[in-house]
């Protein structure tokens, strides 16, 4: 369920004018911007953008980029986008902006949606950047990471519920051979080639993969993610683990991303914003419940203690919290 609180009645024109007022003068009235935009759903935000363009002949996003800064600016400018456009923009930024693509963003883009949704994101990406997502992921990665990420981003996964038990059993064995062949179970040994892992993870349907992971645990006595645990510097293994967690339990995976982003030395705001902004209209409520269960404190408390100022206010607004005004 969504955590966003948006009124049913609203006037895009009035909102556009209120936002313009917030930009006027020397400073920027961030609080008002957060109050308005933090309480509008995707459709409403779209209408506000159109109204602002009509009235002031300016792109609202450009204006926000100019008037805001830092973490708040990035979060608000992502928030205001239409959800599909946002996914494409996040994917692009994760590939192009950093010296090395953030594989987590690419995996989240690819694995947390249906085949049709991923296709829509890829079409939007092509429209915006005049290149395919596959091209950009491929040309900015290398080796096994490239093979894996490109495969995961390209596949048009079968979405039926059927499971072939024999195949699940045999592929659980294949995965075991590949993972443990290199250096022992959970011993952090390098993977003994990764062709079959990549094939299985990037082509099989989700129900089929869940059955395979179950067989893996039964056969090898440990979960597949534990088997892949090892050297934290081994990014490829980390990507495989992330993908498997994403497939097994997306909400738990996301709460872990949030938890890690807060608990690392210095908060990783990009990851924190990304999860809250992309899930606020989807299932952030359930994620909050998982977070509370796993960490013993509410996500709002965690965000409140680890972030500051207007950025904090914005995140808390999206989390459905009304108290910080």
């Amino acid at each position, binding site marked *: 369920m969504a955590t966003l609180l948006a009124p049913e009645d609203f006037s895009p024109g009035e909102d556009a004018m209120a936002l313009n007022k917030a930009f006027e003068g020397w400073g920027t009235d961030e609080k008002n911007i957060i109050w308005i935009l933090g309480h509008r759903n995707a459709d409403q935000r779209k209408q506000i953008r159109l109204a602002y363009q009509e009235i002031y002949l300016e792109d609202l996003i450009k204006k926000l980029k100019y008037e805001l800064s830092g973490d708040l600016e990035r979060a608000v400018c992502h928030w205001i986008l239409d959800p599909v456009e946002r996914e494409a923009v996040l994917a692009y930024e994760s590939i192009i902006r950093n010296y090395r693509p953030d594989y987590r963003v690419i995996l989240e883009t690819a694995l947390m949606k249906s085949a049709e949704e991923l296709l829509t994101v890829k079409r939007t990406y092509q429209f915006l950047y*005049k290149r395919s997502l596959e091209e950009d992921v491929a040309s900015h990665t290398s080796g096994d990471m490239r093979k894996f990420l490109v495969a995961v981003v*390209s596949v048009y996964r079968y979405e039926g519920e059927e499971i072939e038990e024999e195949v699940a059993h045999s592929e659980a064995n294949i995965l075991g051979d590949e993972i443990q062949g290199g250096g022992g179970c959970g011993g952090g040994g390098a993977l003994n080639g990764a062709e079959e892992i990549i094939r299985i993870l990037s082509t099989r*349907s989700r129900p089929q993969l869940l059955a395979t992971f179950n067989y893996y645990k039964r056969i090898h006595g440990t979960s597949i993610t534990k088997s892949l645990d090892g050297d934290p510097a081994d990014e490829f293994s980390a990507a495989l683990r992330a993908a498997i967690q994403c497939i097994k339990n997306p909400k738990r995976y996301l709460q872990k991303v949030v938890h890690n982003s807060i608990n690392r030395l210095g908060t990783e705001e990009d990851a924190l914003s990304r999860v809250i902004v992309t899930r606020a209209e989807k299932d952030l409520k359930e994620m909050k419940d998982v977070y509370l269960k796993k960490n013993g404190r509410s996500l709002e408390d965690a965000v409140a203690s680890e972030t500051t100022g207007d950025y904090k206010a914005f995140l808390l607004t999206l989390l459905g919290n009304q108290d910080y005004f």
Partner: protein
Amino acid sequence: MAERKKTTILVRRGKKLNKEGEKIMTSPEECEALRKAFSGPHGVEEKSMLEILVKCNPADLTTFRKKSPDIFSDDECCFEKWDSSHMKFLENKFLRFHRAVIQRMMHPWERDALLVRKSLEEKPPLYNLLIELACTRTSDEFLGARKAFQCLYSESVEEFVAVRVEGFQRRLLVALVSTYRYEGMRIDEAAIKLECQKLGRAIKTDKKNEIEKDDEVLRILTTRSKHFLKTIHKCYKESYDSNLEEDLDDIQILRDTVNCLCAPPIYFSKILDTVMSVDPTKQDIEALTRVIVTRTDVDMKDIAEEFNRKYGAPLIERIKAATLGNYRDFLVALVKRGMAN
């Protein structure tokens, strides 16, 4: 006077009468025409078979059978038994038109999904067919085929291909069937130059099995847009004075990939030439129908021009010479339709 008329008529028709007064098919031309009506691999001459078989009587047919020991043999039985493999062969020839009609009428997604399935279920597998399907269709057309495949077979094309192929071929083919290429015309000139050099270096310096392991060659061919690749093809020719696909000639699947992506008319006209030559293999035979039916609304004009240029004969004339009956008429009409578009 009536008697003379009767004789004249009989003489003109060249009919002799046997003892029972029945007409017999003694004309060697008619015997030959019947044989010709089902010789050659591409179709049957339905009209001529119909006329002859209606005209002739049981004795004529016995004569025909006795005169065709390659088809009918009475070694083991007391009658001229039809050789069963020839019967199967003939059945397939009758089916050429039937199959062409089905392919033409079927939804292109279903048609391509069936062809994808067939490409890897045949022994030996037809990698070039899979490459043709993945590379000569637009991104959305092939996506449709992938959806149809899931609907028909309850699994994705990616799964299907990945499980049946190994090694380098797997990496290439799975990537080709998965990718959703950008279909626009925007390209990055700097990237073109850079990637043209990468290809050049890989091809000119590496040995064959090293090219296969070259991640960059694979990346460029399996993710870049078609316009991008056509531009690289031009750039490669200018830089190295040779054609990219010719330099990849040792690795057939890479050569086919480049041809299908950069110049489908060249790829298709070659298939047509092979299939209409003397004694094509079974797989080639199906290609004639497939190429004409699937390209009539796409680039038949370009294929016909290329065919004429490369092989010195108009495509329609070659088809007329190599095919029979309704099958021939159907293919010729489709080519004409394509050329008029």
